């Protein structure tokens, strides 16, 4: 649906167009959000505007792990209680949220900001691989956990990192790949089943 700009107010138009650029928001949703904000109290709208501004103004990438941070180091790198001898390598900052939510991992992270994807032209210089290797040299790290996605790109990235890190004499592990919780065996694909069988464990 095309909005006719001459029939609506300029500032309303502008906001609608901005909303429509967001992922998952079409013209109708943009319209609904805009008119909702028009009717909302001023304080609430200002709070939203302020939150959006500060998102860009006061965040940066952590200089150590490239997670989203509000100062030089991210909260995880700053935390003295975390185990400084292991690094968990993930593709994107959201993956840290998922891992942290489980609460089981107590070490440090490294965000690659992508995965090697030759057909999209993404190579080792487009993601933070150099930086990871730099972090590992002359450090107290004893284990690197590769937690890239179990997709073809993620697997490829993990295999490449493995090749690069092993000469440094650091233990490299990969997140287990097997059956997801709450699913049914009959739908599992060959690769998942093969890996699940290879990685089977005795019940404790």
């Amino acid at each position, binding site marked *: 649906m095309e909005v006719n700009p001459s029939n609506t107010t300029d500032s309303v138009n502008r906001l609608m167009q901005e909303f429509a650029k967001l992922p998952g928001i079409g013209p109708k949703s943009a319209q609904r959000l805009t008119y909702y904000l028009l009717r909302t109290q001023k304080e609430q709208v200002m709070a939203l505007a302020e939150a959006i501004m500060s998102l860009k103004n006061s965040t940066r990438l952590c200089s150590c792990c490239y997670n989203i941070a509000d100062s030089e180091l991210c909260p995880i790198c700053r935390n003295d209680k975390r185990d400084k001898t292991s690094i968990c390598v993930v593709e994107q900052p959201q993956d840290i949220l998922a891992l942290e939510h489980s609460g089981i991992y107590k070490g440090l992270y490294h965000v690659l900001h992508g995965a090697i994807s*030759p*057909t999209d032209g993404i190579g080792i210089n487009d993601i933070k691989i150099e930086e990871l290797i730099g972090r590992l040299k002359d450090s107290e790290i004893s284990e690197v956990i590769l937690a890239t996605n179990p997709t*073809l790109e993620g697997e490829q990235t993990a295999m490449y990192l493995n090749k690069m890190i092993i000469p440094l004499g650091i233990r490299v592990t990969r997140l287990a790949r097997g059956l997801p919780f709450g699913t049914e065996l009959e739908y599992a694909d060959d690769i998942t089943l093969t890996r699940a069988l290879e990685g089977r464990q005795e019940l404790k």
Partner: protein
Amino acid sequence: MSEPRDYKTEAIVIKKTRLGEADRILTLYTPHLGKIQAVAKGVRQPKSKMSGHLELLTYSMVSLARGKNLATVTGSQTINGFLGIKDDLELTSYALYIIELVNQFTEDGIEDYPLFKMLVDVLEKLSTEKNRELVLRYFEVQLLDNLGYRPQLKQCVSCRMRLKPLINQFCPGAGGMLCPACGKNGSFSYQLSVNGLKVFRLLQDGDYNTISRLKMPKELAMELERLIRAYIKYLLEKDIKSLAWLETLKRCL
């Protein structure tokens, strides 16, 4: 007669792009429908039943439902997951290069059964054959042949004389060989040694079993690789993206 709403086909996944929150658009190469695109819903969530059967480089039986625009994948079952390829960094990279080639050289919806056979065949060979580079070369040459870009290797494309056993020139723009005399005229070309030309002809005509017994010196392999890639680049008028990665990999391994 209108086409059925639901249909089933064998397919190899040759490309995937993200769509929305958890979906993907897949490019599939099929035996009788050629290259098709389809939406796979929810395959980026861990609980998806289909995701493992629809990863890149997977040969599956796929059920599709025709849509207004794109078809939707309703079910899938792996026929061959090419696990041997996916467990090996180098092989994965080669295979990605192969599917990028197929994707770049084909148009949607044009049936090409021989090409489908070639694709299955090369992926199977990659995980079993020792000389991986040669498998790749053979595929490249056979692919060009199949697409109608068979280079002229028997005679000079300019003066039509039979080529003599000398160092001749391969000219991508002219689609074949130039004899030393015609090669002087300045059009962009590559030198090709006598042995190089022989192997090139074998790749074009011979069956794989004969070629697999060849012992190729490294320089000869490099010569052919450079030349065939230049020809492919000339035909596509752009770079194959995964080549950059193959180069990186070669340096670090």
